[in-house]
């Protein structure tokens, strides 16, 4: 047997050295490479799972927010409609009030205008009377200058009075 081993080159010294070489490599690789790398892979997997979970949660939250948003928009639309209706009715009230006010002001203005017109008419009638009187006086004076004894002031006033009544 030992001759066979010797022919095959098997030497227990070399066996031990190769075995120790491998065992050392196994220990070092386990500590330096496999363990940290496996830990890193676990950490990464946990992180990815956490990320996926958070993404799911965010998705749910987004859907909830979307739902809430839709409800809020619906509420806002409802309240906007109410506001619109209220505004419309307010506007109608205001319009009626303004119309009434305008009518009242128009009536006042009409009254004022009528009064002014009457005053103006009165003034112009007076002016016309005065002018006519002055004209008659001037005519009479002219007539009197022709025959002053036949005319007196009483006649003139009588004539004017009659003319006014007529």
């Amino acid at each position: 047997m030992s001759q066979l081993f010797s022919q095959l080159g098997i030497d227990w010294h070399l066996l031990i050295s190769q075995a120790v070489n491998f065992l050392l490599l196994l220990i070092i690789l386990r500590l330096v490479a496999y363990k940290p790398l496996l830990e890193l892979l676990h950490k990464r997997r946990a992180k990815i799972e956490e990320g996926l979970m958070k993404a799911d949660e965010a998705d749910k939250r987004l859907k909830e927010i979307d739902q809430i948003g839709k409800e809020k928009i619906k509420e806002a639309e409802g309240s906007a409609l109410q506001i619109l209706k209220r505004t419309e009715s307010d506007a109608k009230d205001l319009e009626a009030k303004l119309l009434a006010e305008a009518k009242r002001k128009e009536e006042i203005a009409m009254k004022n205008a009528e009064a002014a017109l009457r005053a103006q008419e009165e003034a112009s009638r007076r002016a016309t009377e005065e002018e006519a009187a002055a004209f008659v006086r001037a005519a009479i004076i002219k007539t009197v200058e022709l025959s002053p004894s036949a005319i007196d002031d009483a006649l003139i006033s009588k004539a004017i009075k009659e003319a006014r009544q007529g």
Partner: protein
Amino acid sequence: MAISIRAEDIFHIGNFPITNSVLLAVVAFIVLIVLAIILRSKLKMIPGGIQNIAEAVLDGALGLMDSVLGDRRKSEKYLPVVLTVFLFVLCSNWLGLLPGVGSFIVRTGDGTVPLFRSPAADLNFTLALALIAVTFVNALGIAAIGLKGRLKVFFNFKNPITFFVGILELISEFAKIISFSFRLFGNVFAGEVLLTIMAFLLPYLAPLPFMCLEVFVGFIQAFIFGMLTLVFISMAVSEGHGEESVAVAN
């Protein structure tokens, strides 16, 4: 041209001979350690460069182990043994194909010998790995199912058939060592011989296809060594091992 089945002694440390195959095994050891240290120093949550390769290898190995062991926790537990066997054998085989290995010559008391030799072309390397693999298989088996459960695989006195199967299992443990060591040794040594002869007969270009073949053989042999270790571990750590073969025999 001399082809020796034995690895040649380069020098001695006390009574310990240091052969050219031990030297290259040490180089493989250093290469792997240096790569591991570089990897360790560059580990980041977002991988890049060497970490990408390491993660791809680790993930591939874990996937393969999952398919055999059926459990990720078990795969992670036995990963160091299986992957180290694979990487060490692969690195040794490929280093043995590098230019310079076999062509750097040193003068020793026995004459001129190559400075390096592929570690797997030395039975001491393959036998040491085989012994370690089988020892680990049994140790992990004991750790998983207990000493009693493991011994029951070899010494089962329930009936004559289980007893006979147990004896076969015991013999197969020794057969594993022999098959492990001689398969790897035979393939790598044959490759070395083939390359040496081709280089001797037709030094230019002709060895190239054989070199490519040896690169492939080096990978396949490392893969087979690792896979067999994995399969034996898987059988050893499962509760029903031994009983299935009895059931089949019945």
